[in-house]
């Protein structure tokens, strides 16, 4: 009898490993990318990523705890089961998809054309023709500009570092710069260095399917490839907080603009 019970227990345990009943989830963030994720004076994680994560957990009745993890080791630590999901403003990319799965986006990461306030330029080939546009080599923004503008008579000037592109934009060597929107906002436009500069035209999400694929899907929650159920829970959670308005309330706390995109 005892043996049978033990066997039954073992079977139950084994089943549990296969289809985990998610009640407790450990979430990880970096804490070095405010306002998306930063550190409170007491060392705890705060920011938009954390608020979104907590809202999803409340919605889906999960008990969530947060782990602070450095960016470099983020994906390896997820794979090594140090935690169960990453909410660290991580872009959904093909490279990362080889190692982990992503939920649907919880905010968009468009690219943007940056220039002097009052510049007549905008992300439109007709006005950009013959102009010089700076980009950090190998970034999404560079790929976009190279693919859709570079062959049409726009000179793409490539830099090893984003700061160098801004330096040449400030000094007037280039007419505009193209960069990840959030990076440009946090790293340049909202900083002292970016005084007198702003986004030219609208954010670039991509108009055609090809353009949208180049800009990318946005920012998602990363989970281990085998944790399909958890991914589904997050997708439902994102949809739910969007529908109930919790999402907008959180977004408004940090930004006066729409961050989800379309």
């Amino acid at each position: 009898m005892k043996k049978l019970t033990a066997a039954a227990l073992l079977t139950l345990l084994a089943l549990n490993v296969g289809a985990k009943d998610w009640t407790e989830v450990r979430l990880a963030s970096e804490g070095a990318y405010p306002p998306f994720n930063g550190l409170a004076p007491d060392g705890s994680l705060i920011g938009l990523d954390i608020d979104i994560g907590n809202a999803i957990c409340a919605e889906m009745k999960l008990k969530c705890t947060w782990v602070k993890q450095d960016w470099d080791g983020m994906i390896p630590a997820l794979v090594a089961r140090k935690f169960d999901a990453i909410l660290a403003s991580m872009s959904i990319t093909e490279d990362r998809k080889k190692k982990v799965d992503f939920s649907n986006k919880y905010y968009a990461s468009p690219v943007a054309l940056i220039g002097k306030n009052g510049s007549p330029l905008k992300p439109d080939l007709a006005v950009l023709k013959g102009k010089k546009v700076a980009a950090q080599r190998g970034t999404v923004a560079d790929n976009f500009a190279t693919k859709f503008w570079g062959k049409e008579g726009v000179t793409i000037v490539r830099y090893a570092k984003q700061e160098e592109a801004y330096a040449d934009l400030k000094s007037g060597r280039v007419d505009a710069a193209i960069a990840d929107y959030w990076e440009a906002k946090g790293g340049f436009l909202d900083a002292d260095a970016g005084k007198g500069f702003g986004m030219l035209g609208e954010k670039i999400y991509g108009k055609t399917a090809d353009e949208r694929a180049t800009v990318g899907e946005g920012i998602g929650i990363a989970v281990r490839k085998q944790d399909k159920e958890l991914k589904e829970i997050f997708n439902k959670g994102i949809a739910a907080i969007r529908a109930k308005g919790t999402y907008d309330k959180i977004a408004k706390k940090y930004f006066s603009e729409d961050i989800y995109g379309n």
Partner: protein
Amino acid sequence: MFEFEIITENFSSYLDGMWLTAQLVGIALAAGLVMAVPLAVMRVSNNPFLYRPVWLYTYFFRGTPMLIQLLVVYYGLAQFQWMQDAWEAQSPFWLLFREPFFCALLAFAVNTCAYTVEILAGSIRSIPHGEIEAAQAMGMTPFTRLRRITLPSALRRSIPAYSNEVIFMLQGSAIASAVTLVDITGAARDVYSRHFAPFEAFVFAGLIYLLMTFAIVGLFRLAEQRWLAHLMPRKTQAAH
């Protein structure tokens, strides 16, 4: 293993890069050499007002990395408001400093000139005394002596050392890509970021530099045969 397609697909950007490297290095070397001859004569002069400034110049430019010099000329100067105002006002002289090509050319020329001055000055100092004494005995004025004896002799004897400087300049020019120029290295960086194939991208760039170095070595061998024949070991007639 080695995806040749990546190279053939981007062959024209490598060729463009090679042309840019050749222009940069060629013009910088020519300008540097022309400036170096009078400066080398000043460098070996006994007059402190002549040799001190040149000593300071070569000390400074040989004592700092060429990359730093380039970054100062390109990003450093552009930081100043007066420079930006001059660009705004379309000042033809200062507009040169807006062009990455000119900035690289300036940094390279000033740098190679400093090294060439020291090469030539060393060569002038080691001129055989007999040649000078013979010229004096012929009654040549100091200027004629410089023009007819000292400089030709010093220039000839500095060819081997100068060939090293030319090769160093070619390899050193790889830093041009730091100021947005798409030279050979710049083309390789673009290919790397586009295809995520650093091995193919950089190995092929290395091969181009290697080929160019071979060409330089060959040219200098010809030059040595032409101008240093009198210093070569005499060819002996084979005994019958």
